[in-house]
């Protein structure tokens, strides 16, 4: 990338300036993220269990036992389902919201504030509001569907795994979609208007100009939005925990990490699982980034 970018001949002092601008990043990320991460990765090769004496080196044993554990496998499958549903729904919904916000002329700032509201609600309150909506006896969902005639008897939504996974994802999507919308809106805002004008003069309709102008120019924003929704979906915890506890139907990988490390005190095993979760979300994100990310400069 750097080789293709047009560049000024290096001025004296450029390196010093770069250092001054980058040092805060290196200090903060190095001290507060990379160093703790390295410690945890190292710990995951030992047996760290406060209930047993000693911390012997066990190599990959923690990782090996995770592969053999049926509960962990179930948690992985649930998490993949969450990621797939959350990423698709958040991207489609967020793109729609961003395009709409970009187009609306009157009261746009109010519409944006309304769009962002779900994200402002404290996560615990969010999960509890939905818990009441899904409540089989007193919840809005059953009453509304009965009234509309969609169902003829009250449903216990979380008794069916597929429905439960979808509803947990829905709560997550409701909260996180504004993030995608804000990122895409910022990207849309930086597209110069004359490009659309030019496309229109070339006879491109709205769909064609979206494909030819909008998509390429927001591709880096889209990569960011896709990656962050993937990462947040891999880290899903509150929604599943509050809506259905440790149920195997909805247990996510991070819930399994919590149970392993903070409930069963198998600390290094929990760290190993959380590192695997990190690698998995990195790998999935990388797929988008490589596919979607293109350098978009026009100079």
């Amino acid at each position, binding site marked *: *990338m*750097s080789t293709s970018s*047009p*560049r000024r001949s290096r001025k004296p002092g*450029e*390196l010093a*300036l770069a250092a001054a*601008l*980058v040092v*805060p*990043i290196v200090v*903060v990320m190095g001290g*507060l*993220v990379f160093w*703790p*991460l390295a410690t*945890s990765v190292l710990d995951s090769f030992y047996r760290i269990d406060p209930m047993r004496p000693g911390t012997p080196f066990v190599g990959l044993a923690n990782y090996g036992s995770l592969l053999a554990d049926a509960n962990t496998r179930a948690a992985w499958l649930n998490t993949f389902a969450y990621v797939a549903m959350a990423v698709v729904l958040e991207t489609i919904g967020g793109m*729609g919201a961003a395009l*709409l916000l*970009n187009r609306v002329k009157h009261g746009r*700032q*109010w519409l*944006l*504030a*309304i*769009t*962002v*509201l779900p994200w*402002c*609600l*404290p996560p615990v*309150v969010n999960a*509890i*509001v939905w818990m009441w*909506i899904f409540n089989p*006896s*007193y919840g809005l969902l059953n009453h509304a569907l009965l009234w509309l005639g969609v169902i003829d008897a009250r449903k216990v939504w979380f008794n069916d795994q597929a429905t439960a996974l979808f509803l947990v994802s829905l709560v997550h999507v409701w909260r996180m979609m504004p*993030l995608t919308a*804000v*990122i895409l*809106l*910022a*990207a849309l805002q*930086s*597209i110069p208007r004359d490009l659309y004008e030019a496309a229109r003069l070339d006879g491109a309709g709205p769909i064609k100009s979206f494909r030819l102008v909008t998509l390429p120019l927001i591709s*880096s*924003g889209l990569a960011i939005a896709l*990656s*962050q929704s993937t990462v947040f979906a*891999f*880290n899903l915890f*509150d929604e599943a925990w509050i809506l259905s506890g440790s149920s195997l139907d909805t247990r996510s990988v*991070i819930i399994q*990490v919590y149970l392993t490390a903070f409930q069963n005190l198998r600390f290094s095993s*929990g*760290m190993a699982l959380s590192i695997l979760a*990190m690698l998995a979300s*990195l790998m999935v994100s990388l797929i988008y980034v490589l596919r979607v990310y293109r350098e978009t*400069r026009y*100079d």
Partner: protein
Amino acid sequence: MRSLISTLPRRIGTAVAVALLVAWSLGPIYWSLVTSLTPPLHLLGTPSLWPREITFEHYAKLVGATSVSQGNAVQSVWPQFSAALVNSLVTSGLATVVTVVIAAFGAYAFVRLEFPGRDLLFVAVVATLAIPAYTVMIPLYRLMISLKLIDTYTGITLIYVSAFLPLALWLMRSVYQAMPISLEEAAWLDGAGRIYTLVHIVLPLSAPGLIASAILTFLNAWGQFMVPLVFSPTLATKPLTVLIPEFVTRNYIDFGLMNAAGILAIIPPVLLVLFLNRYLVSGLMAGATK
């Protein structure tokens, strides 16, 4: 000039889309509001779209001087609530300012300046987005203890910055990359320095990106739970997200109180978004394209 007839379907489409978006976003919030206004004894009944009987007792518990619990007059939770509200504002605000400043200047270096290890460093920083909080929590706790930063605004702010900097940095980098270099080149030809160009030409043009980064960082920090749970043991720095679950008493989940607290908690970020939003959608790019 197009006729009204030909734009009518488009207008109706837009109106329907706006209505859907508003209903989707506000529906559950409205439901939370209704719950916060419903007397506790009416919570378990057939749900109705508006409360049959409105009570402000949950809000009174939050903001009043005293309230009644289990038949006893007890101190209201307002002192805790207001302290936590201030903590949420201070930590999220500080984290936002520091993150956006570091990201705005740092991302510029990643786009326009050459230095060894540039791309590797960028990828490494962005990759940390994927780290679950649990992975680093215990080593981070040891570090914060040794720096004596537990239960300080500085400590919480630093952790938030380290958590939200990658996203802001990535966003700002993509914004700078999309910006025509010709504008800067014109300024350099006039003899302007890098910093001058960055501050006076690049940053104003990047306003939508800066504001989006600020909103993202602020709201991410506002909703944090795990970090303050461990690093903010007392009301010196404890935010609303950690305080609100404490309204679950052992015998009794105070749904009304939790929802009332939630409704009050969304006001400050919404005001901020309304305020910042002027800059996010004010079409500042107009200057770049004329």
